[in-house]
């Protein structure tokens, strides 16, 4: 007797992907990002040769003019070198720049800003800090905000 084999057409079932491990990774990523989420509107783009000190402060920063002073005492505003804070009581180049910035802000119809974010290199001496604060205050920025790094 001749055997006949009927080739039965089996329905191809859709392939099932195991996405459990993918979900695990996503959840870990989500938790990590949520933990490191900071609600501040302050964006910090540090210049070279500058590291900020650690602090236990927990007040979130706000947007204001950002003045950076690196370890060579060079002054930077918006990634542009404005002058040096090595000597003198008042830094003329910084004073002129800040005065101009303040005038521009007031021309727009907004009241003149008073806050300034100071991003200073951690080993700078107080004399340099003092020169910066003195010049800023003379230009009308009397509300200093020292930007520091969180430290738990």
């Amino acid at each position, binding site marked *: 007797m001749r055997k006949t084999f009927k080739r039965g057409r089996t329905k191809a079932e859709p392939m099932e992907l195991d996405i459990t491990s993918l979900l695990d990774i996503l959840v870990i990523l989500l938790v990590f*990002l949520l933990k490191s989420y900071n609600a501040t509107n302050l964006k910090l783009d540090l210049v070279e040769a500058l590291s900020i000190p650690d602090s236990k*402060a927990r007040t979130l920063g706000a947007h204001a003019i950002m003045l950076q002073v690196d370890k060579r005492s060079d002054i930077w505003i918006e990634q542009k070198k404005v002058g040096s804070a090595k000597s003198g009581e008042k830094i003329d180049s910084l004073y002129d720049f800040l005065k101009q910035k303040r005038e521009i802000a007031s021309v727009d119809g907004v009241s003149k800003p008073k806050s300034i*974010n100071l991003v200073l290199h951690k080993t700078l*001496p107080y*004399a340099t800090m003092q020169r910066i604060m003195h010049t800023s*205050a003379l230009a009308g920025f009397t509300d*200093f905000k020292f930007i*520091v790094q969180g430290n738990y």
Partner: protein
Amino acid sequence: MISQRKKLNKMPKLNLIPILDAIFIFIFFLLMSAQFLEIYEIGSDAPITTTASQKPNEKEPLNLTLEIRSGSVVVKTGLDGNVYKRVNTRNLAALNEVLIELKNKHPEENSAILKPSKGYEYHKIVKIIDHTREVLKPNVYVTAYDEKKRKYPSKTLFDKIIFETQN
């Protein structure tokens, strides 16, 4: 019979696609707004001098001044600048304790004047500010008063920092 049992044993599948979509959008949003350097601010005002006459029966202001030298912090109080205590800069916990003591005596005061020496480094000043602004010991609180003069426990010491220059 068997096929019915098979049907019963099969678990219903959850449709995870919308959840995955939402998670992906959330992750993109968080990645775009992420800033991995945690930055905070310490506020300080430029000193403003005003002339005000002291009313009779009014309590003399604390006028807390911290004179920071290379090895020590001198805590001064009063308008005459009387030395209250000297603290070694290596032991800033002691400074915190002195300030807790002063805050308990003067709960209405919230400002401290810092007078660092010219060569004192910024990160060391920040450390002193940290010990001046709040109680760092766990489970230790100071008494504070709200607007209606009601007492409440607080961790805040002298959070208004003013810089002054040593002569």
